[in-house]
């Protein structure tokens, strides 16, 4: 799809409408395009100037804003899908679903597509928020396992508090594709919501499928990463990531893949970033991160792969061909937000409540923005230098203490949301319930 538009553009026969469609399309789904390259056409500011506006909601914002024209679309954990004017920060409409919507919507042909924890998938009129159709999956759920992450009692099944990002749909050639907590990868007719096919995996799919050359690429918590024919729903190949039968910590694909130049780059909870051949699924290289998850979706540009880790809180640039480290920077807290390349700046959200801008070439920090909630540092969730202060929020592995601890960790104004860059401004959500526009 993307290649098609680019071809028209290069031939100089792009009409105004086509140019507009290309421009809007580049921001209208998670990671900017169906292949999830993580590269924006826009240029990010090299200096922080101001908060242009902030849009408060009723609960945390995990979703990443997408845009069509001047309108931002995002989901909220308060159960609403929002349309907001990107210039003014004023609400255009909201549509209430039956559950939290930490899902990044996709917009195409005047329709907003998003999923909700109510187990339904929604198609909404992009101008009014009216429901065009909705589709019932087999039910939404988070990844769960006995004694997960070493929590007690170890024979008790516990939901994974870190399974926080709900799948994001991808819209290509009249079809909308998304994963689900029911383990299925779905293909629906984008216009009618009619089921074209579904592909069953062994566990939760909360990553967003990437699309390239008629193939969908998505990982599941069953430890496999899949390539599926977009037209038929037939499996082309599968790749086996790591497993962790003991505490289920080092297993599962939560990262959404990026597909560039015939290669698939994807992070895994087994602490590897994998480079796989898109045609065969053959592993070309892997980059091991010492038991630290890779949740982010990598960004690819000029033969470099940019990604970040959770516990070790490292910002990495590796060579796309070899997987060798090009540069590594120590950050202060976990990163679940995916890096976005916008001009010569890389933007990434950090779970300590800061949005960071780094120089693309050197990786050096250019500026950061810290949410007020993070500055308040209630309960000393952060150290004075903004690192996670585990002894102050993980008080026990028993009963609900870890869940409360993780809630406190996340409620510091954490930025899970992947930033959107448009017209010189940066848009992103925070667990403090706000969507911010800064420039």
């Amino acid at each position: 799809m993307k290649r098609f538009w680019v071809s028209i553009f290069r031939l100089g026969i792009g009409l105004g409408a086509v140019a507009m469609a290309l421009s809007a399309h580049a921001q209208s789904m998670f990671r900017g395009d169906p292949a999830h390259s993580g590269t924006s056409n826009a240029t990010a500011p090299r200096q922080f100037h101001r908060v242009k506006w902030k849009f408060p909601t009723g609960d945390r914002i995990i979703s990443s804003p997408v845009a069509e024209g001047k309108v931002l679309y995002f989901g909220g954990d308060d159960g609403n899908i929002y349309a907001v004017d990107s210039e003014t920060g004023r609400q255009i409409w909201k549509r209430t679903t039956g559950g939290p919507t930490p899902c990044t919507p996709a917009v195409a042909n005047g329709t907003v597509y998003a999923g909700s924890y109510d187990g339904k998938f929604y198609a909404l009129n992009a101008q009014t928020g009216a429901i065009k159709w909705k589709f019932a999956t087999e039910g939404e759920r988070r990844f769960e396992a006995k004694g997960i992450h070493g929590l007690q009692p170890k024979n008790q099944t516990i939901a994974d508090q870190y399974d926080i990002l709900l799948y994001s749909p991808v819209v290509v050639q009249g079809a909308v594709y998304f994963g689900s907590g029911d383990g299925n990868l779905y293909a629906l007719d984008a216009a009618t919501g009619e089921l074209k096919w579904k592909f069953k995996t062994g566990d939760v799919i909360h990553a967003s499928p990437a699309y390239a050359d008629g193939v969908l690429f998505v990982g599941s918590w069953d430890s496999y990463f899949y390539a599926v024919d977009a037209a038929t729903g037939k499996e082309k190949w599968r790749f086996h990531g790591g497993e962790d039968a003991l505490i289920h910590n080092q297993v599962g694909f939560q990262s959404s893949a990026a597909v560039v130049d015939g290669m698939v780059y994807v992070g895994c909870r087994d602490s590897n970033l994998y480079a796989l051949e898109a045609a065969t699924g053959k592993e070309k290289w892997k980059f091991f991160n010492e038991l630290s998850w890779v949740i982010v979706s990598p960004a690819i540009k000029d033969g470099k792969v940019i990604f970040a880790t959770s516990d070790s809180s490292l910002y990495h640039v590796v060579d796309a061909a070899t997987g060798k480290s090009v540069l590594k920077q120590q950050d202060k807290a976990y990163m679940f937000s995916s890096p976005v390349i916008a001009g010569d700046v890389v933007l990434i959200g950090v779970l300590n409540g800061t949005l960071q801008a780094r120089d693309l070439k050197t990786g050096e920090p250019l500026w950061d923005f810290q949410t007020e909630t993070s500055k308040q540092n209630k309960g000393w969730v952060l150290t004075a230098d903004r690192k996670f202060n585990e002894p102050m929020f993980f008080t026990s592995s028993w009963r609900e203490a870890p869940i409360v601890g993780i809630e406190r960790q996340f409620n510091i104004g954490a930025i899970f949301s992947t930033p959107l860059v448009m017209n010189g401004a940066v848009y992103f959500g925070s667990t403090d319930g706000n969507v911010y526009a800064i420039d």
Partner: protein
Amino acid sequence: MRLFATILFASAALCQAAESAAGRWEGAAQIPGHELKLVVDLSDEGGKGWTGSIIVPGFGVKGAPLVDLHVRGGDLTFAIKGALGNERAGRAELKAHLTPDGHLAGNFTQGGNSAPFVLEKIGPAQVDLPPRNTAVSKELEGEWKGDYEMMGYARHATLKFSNRGAEGAALDFVIVGKKTNNVPVSLVTQDENFLTVKSDEFGITFEGRFSKEAGEIKGTLSQGPLEAPLVLHRSP
């Protein structure tokens, strides 16, 4: 005469400070959005210098030892060992003074953050002394080796026991995986044939039973939620 009076006064003041600082103190540190309750026990009994421990309700901390405990006049400083701290945050420290109205007031610092606290004396000290190393039997002295697997990674452990008289046993504990780790040992005890080794800093515990017949120490090494069987044999 003046010198004598000064010495008398200073001595009396020190004695009074000691009496005043000793006891069980209860109160809270006012950290943002949260009142951190603290129960501190301070004792100067037995002429062995000051000892103390702390309870932090709701944080799973009961009887964590106080270290670097200094009492000078009405001023006190101490740090908490093995609780409310880690490699990233450093250790939690308290700096306090006795107030004229009999309270213990000061600053609680942790992870570079600082908050005021006030404690009130509620009774005599009940210092929770940490368990001490016991001696190990002659048969256990020397070097033992074994291999185990954790999270799919092979590791090699070496434990070298020695006895140091009244101090009980000493242990050099090394784990070799991808890196060589010298494990700081907090506790070594032997109760008949049952051996316990703990490292608070690494969150590692080894518990094993010594069998003279088999010439081995057979047990389990746990690190946080992870457990692995480990059988140690004497180094050749």
